[in-house]
């Protein structure tokens, strides 16, 4: 039904646009839940699940009881679902979409004979062509000779029919689960000492890192949850400067966090997860000094980042801008790599840069003398001006005063300063210091 028609019937109809990504996520979590009924469960289209329950029904007391149990649980969860059990995947698919039910063994053709041919998963054109010659039900097709059917309607129809009736195999291909990087440990007696927790952590880390290695992944964040006997939880989370799966090196980063945990009456369960992981190919270990140096540097960045924050461990990266403040980037070192700095021609740049600080008592252009930071400076030599225009495509509050004329001022007192003047500023040009040369 079109939305306009539906609105014509019911003007108050509440509608929402379909969110395919979330629907797929919900279906995949339902698939995980459905694995309680069978080892092989796969998604079937965008709205279905198919499970291979060979050898399972007797655990639930029979096929009927299994289906009732499934329906009851889904209903309790608020899900409206239809289900069918049959000897082949094709029949189960057809029946589940046309009322559901159970087809006993050996009665496949009778079980779906009354269903329309569209239930056979044939495309629209084939279904229409079948309807035109008067073959509307599956029972009409089942006893027809295969060769003329295949010649007239294509091999697809015959394949689907054979799959439904069991003449062609159609296994349930369950996709592998995405690996879950989490391990847990429950203790018979609560623990409270720091070294006990660290020993438990070491055992969990061994298992987690083995799993990471098996999937060729490395952790970027590792979280340790400690459950206390009074049902409170404490959490310690660390970040790593690069993907890593070395238990000993990760354990040392936890030492400070574990030290600060209040264990209360004791801790009786530990859970270790790696919420953020990245691909990490197997690598040469213990090789030349270059590898050891990289490891040591990454360890330093990790430990410093965990103490002062990863956003405070920085690296300077070049940027393509003539504006002094934007001519380089301060990037977190853990999430960037060093870039070669392009050689730059043109006038010299200062070694330190700071936000512009106004000078007072400036006289002349360039100023013959001025005061800055409560010191009096006399100009010995001035080089410039170098005019830098603002980038009009960025609205930078610092550059609202317009053009800047930069001068390199060598002072009698020694310091070589980077001054600029704002000729377009309202209220007359002002002088500012923005950097200091070597």
């Amino acid at each position, binding site marked *: 039904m079109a939305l306009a028609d539906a609105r014509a019937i019911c003007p108050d109809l509440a509608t929402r646009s379909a969110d395919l990504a979330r629907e797929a996520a919900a279906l995949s979590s339902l698939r995980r839940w459905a694995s309680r009924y069978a080892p092989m469960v796969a998604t079937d289209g965008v709205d279905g699940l198919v499970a291979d329950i060979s050898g399972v029904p007797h655990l639930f007391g029979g096929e009927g009881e299994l289906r009732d149990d499934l329906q009851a649980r889904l209903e309790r969860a608020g899900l409206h679902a239809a289900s069918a059990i049959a000897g082949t995947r094709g029949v189960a698919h057809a029946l589940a979409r046309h009322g559901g039910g159970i087809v006993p063994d050996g009665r496949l053709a009778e079980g779906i004979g009354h269903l329309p041919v569209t239930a056979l998963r044939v495309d629209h054109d084939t279904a229409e062509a079948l309807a035109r010659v008067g073959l509307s039900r599956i029972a009409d097709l089942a006893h027809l000779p295969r060769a003329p059917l295949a010649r007239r309607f294509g091999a697809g129809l015959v394949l689907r029919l054979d799959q439904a009736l069991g003449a062609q195999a159609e296994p349930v291909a369950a996709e592998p689960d995405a690996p879950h990087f989490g391990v847990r440990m429950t203790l018979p007696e609560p623990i409270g000492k720091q070294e006990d927790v660290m020993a438990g952590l070491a055992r969990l880390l061994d298992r987690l890192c083995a799993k990471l290695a098996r999937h060729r992944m490395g952790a970027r964040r590792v979280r340790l949850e400690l459950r206390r006997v009074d049902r409170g939880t404490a959490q310690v989370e660390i970040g790593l400067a690069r993907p890593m799966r070395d238990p000993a090196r990760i354990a040392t980063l936890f030492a400070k966090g574990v030290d600060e945990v209040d264990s209360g009456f004791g801790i009786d369960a530990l859970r270790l997860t790696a919420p953020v992981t990245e691909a990490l190919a197997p690598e040469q270990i213990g090789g030349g000094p270059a590898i*050891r*140096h990289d490891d*040591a*540097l990454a*360890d*330093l*960045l990790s*430990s*410093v980042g965990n*103490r*002062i924050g990863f956003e*405070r*461990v*920085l*690296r*300077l*990266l*070049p940027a393509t801008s003539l504006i*002094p403040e934007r*001519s*380089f980037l*301060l990037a977190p*070192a853990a999430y960037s790599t*060093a*870039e*070669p*700095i392009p050689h*730059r021609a043109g006038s*010299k*740049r*200062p*070694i*330190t*840069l*700071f*936000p512009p600080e106004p000078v007072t008592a400036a006289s002349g252009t360039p100023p013959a003398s001025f005061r800055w930071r409560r010191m009096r400076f006399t100009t*010995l*030599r001035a080089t410039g001006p170098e005019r830098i225009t603002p980038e009009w495509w960025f609205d930078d509050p610092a550059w609202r005063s317009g053009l800047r004329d930069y001068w390199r001022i*060598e*002072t*009698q*007192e*020694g*310091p*070589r300063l980077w001054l600029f003047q704002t000729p377009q500023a309202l209220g007359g040009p002002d002088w500012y210091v923005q*950097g*200091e*040369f*070597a």
Partner: protein
Amino acid sequence: MRPEPAPTDSFDLRARRVHEAEGRGRRAFALFQAARHPGPLVWIAPAHIPELPMLQGLPRGVGERLHLFRPSNETDLLWCVEEALRVAPISLVIAEPQQPLSLTAGRRLQLAAEAGRTTGLMLIREDGGSNATETRWNCTPLASQAPDSTPHRWSLIKNKKGTIGSWTLNWNGTSTAVHMVSAARERHEPAGAAR
């Protein structure tokens, strides 16, 4: 780009020790030393000071190797210095402590530098150093009489294992080479009071 091989002269900082530099030109002196130390560099400056190294103005080959740590308080800063000094592949750790270094802190840093076989350089305020330092330099930029010269005066005002001295030199801020204005010399006059 590979840094040029480090020359050996009076400005070599003794390896595996922590040194101090004060005065207006201390950042220039630190960058000069950074250019002469091949390998990763760490610059530790408190988050609240406005001065940042400007990438385009640094000596050749320094910007790529530089890591900047910006801890929020003095304790974290000293912790970062000690931690960085203990890591062997780091060649030079430059830090800007804002408060005077205590003898304990200075001694701990020396031990860390020895353990990690790393050199450290503290950019201190005037009289904010610790007695545990190996050498202390007073660095001031000088007014240049000739154009295109950038003279500095770097005075070694404390040296545990050698003589002190004062040098006036031209360093243009791009390479590891310096031009001496007056040659290094032995001290003739009696030393002032030790600091």
